[in-house]
């Protein structure tokens, strides 16, 4: 099947500066694709070119089989956009806002069903500007969905949410997957990308610096893990078995071991501790988080 989004050699220059310096992207139907990158990395520029808001300097862009620069009403009928920042429609309730937007489309979704999908049924008759920040964002998502798009752009959908509102929003986005929608998500939250995305691309300095699943991005699956624990009183680092001693870096009895073979080392550690009859209640084995990987990928060269 033809990809929903296909980008080849996309470039956008402002004067001498390349905001986007030749990127390739491919997004398949039904995927939740997360696009990550620090501010000023070319993320918003790329998204706005895909949405048809901005022109490009060079490259091929195809969204649902159409060049967004020539996107007409028939194309917009199939694309949903949830902007990073947009105010509520003044003077209209949640339902009225959706009625207004629903009239713009030829085959919109059912209004009440869409309100229920974003969990605003009880607020349907509240004036949109009176909603809380999280509720307003969910209304934004509903407005982006009302046309029943095949592809939906979500630009930082949960920025400024409290943790429970973010969970609710994630359920809504998970729901889109079940509806068979393709989702282009931009976010600053690594846990969000990890929770939702099938695939992630990281842009930095106008270029894609890594692409992969949340588990494999930037070689995360092959990166060293860290084993942490605190030695009980009376036990020193010198008492550890030799193969662990070599890896250890310690401070006040706290030990952190970095290892490519976590299971081997945890096994040796467990054997040693059990033989001595000591427990390590704060034992912790951690893979590098997506955030660690991301920060490494997007680090500015010093």
């Amino acid at each position, binding site marked *: 099947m033809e990809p929903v989004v296909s980008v080849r050699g996309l470039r956008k220059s402002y004067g001498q500066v390349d905001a986007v310096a030749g990127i390739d992207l491919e997004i398949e139907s039904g995927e939740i694709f997360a696009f990550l990158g620090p501010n000023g990395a070319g993320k918003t520029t790329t998204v706005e070119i895909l949405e048809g808001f901005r022109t490009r300097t060079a490259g091929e862009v195809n969204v649902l089989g159409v060049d967004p620069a020539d996107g007409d009403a*028939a194309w917009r009928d199939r694309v949903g956009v949830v902007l990073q*920042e*947009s*105010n509520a429609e*003044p*003077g209209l309730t949640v339902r009225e806002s959706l009625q207004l937007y629903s009239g713009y*489309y030829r085959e*919109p979704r059912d209004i009440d069903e869409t309100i229920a999908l974003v969990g605003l049924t009880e607020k349907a008759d509240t004036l949109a500007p009176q909603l809380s920040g999280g509720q307003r964002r969910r209304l934004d998502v509903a407005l982006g969905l009302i046309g029943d798009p095949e592809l939906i752009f979500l630009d930082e959908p949960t920025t400024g949410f409290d943790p429970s509102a973010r969970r609710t929003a994630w359920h809504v986005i998970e729901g889109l997957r079940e509806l068979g929608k393709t989702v282009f998500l931009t976010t600053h939250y690594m846990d969000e990308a990890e929770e939702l995305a099938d695939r992630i691309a990281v842009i930095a300095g106008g270029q894609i610096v890594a692409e992969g699943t949340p588990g494999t991005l930037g070689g995360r699956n092959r990166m060293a893990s860290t084993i942490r624990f605190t030695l009980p009183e009376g036990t020193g680092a010198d008492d550890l078995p030799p193969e662990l001693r070599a890896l250890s870096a310690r401070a006040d009895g706290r030990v952190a071991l970095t290892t490519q073979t976590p299971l081997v080392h945890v096994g040796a550690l467990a054997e040693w501790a059990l033989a001595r009859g000591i427990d390590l209640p704060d034992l912790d084995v951690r893979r590098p988080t997506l955030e660690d990987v991301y920060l490494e990928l997007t680090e500015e060269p010093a």
Partner: protein
Amino acid sequence: MTTAAARGPVALVLHQARFDLRSFLRNQQARFFTLALPVIFLVIFNGVFGNRVVGPGPMKASAYYVPGIAALAVIAASFVNLVISITAQREGGILKRRRATPVPASVLVGGRALTAVGISLVVVAVLLGVGRVAYGVKLPTAGLIGIAFTAIVGSITFCVLGYALSTVIKNEDAAQPMVQAIMLPLYFISGIFIPNISLPPWLRHVASVFPVQHLAAGFRHSYVPGAHGIGIVWSDIGVLAIWALIGITVAILRFSWLPKAASA
């Protein structure tokens, strides 16, 4: 259910106007400045000058102020209100969000203009009613056609001028002071607040360049007792049309859907 979009552009313009009107009616500030303030002005000016005779004409002050304040009301409903709301919609990302839907730009503009025309006609009718009931100014029936025609042309002209002006305003905080800075002097020199016969000739020449005086004059021609026919003076309508063309040109060349704050 067939949607407005599926029923064609006219249905879509009506759809847009219906929601624009609802939004307007729920905005207390817009309601006050557009619906209440013109009536308050009419009562005040008649209270001050009621029995005097003012020129040119000469005519009674009450008969003079109804058409002048009607012009102010049309400008409030079309220009002032539109500049403020369009600027706020642009900076708040509402225009950008609408742009991302299949709705054509012409429908958004048309719906907004239709709302302004509708509100203008209602306010002008209320002012005529007040003039009739409170000040006994009787309007020839034929004049009604001229008044309605002038209100529609004036409203559309000031709508497009509003779109044009909004393109040079950076943010919504600047919108209100900007429109007032432009309109207040024009109201004073265009015979809205004071009869412009009392102005020095050079100031009257300045006023005659701008559309405010011609809108007021357009109303006055239809309103003057004993006006001939429907009282449309084509030179006034012509000046309004020229301004409308200037407004359309500027708006088309400069209009932006995206917030200026973000694109700067």
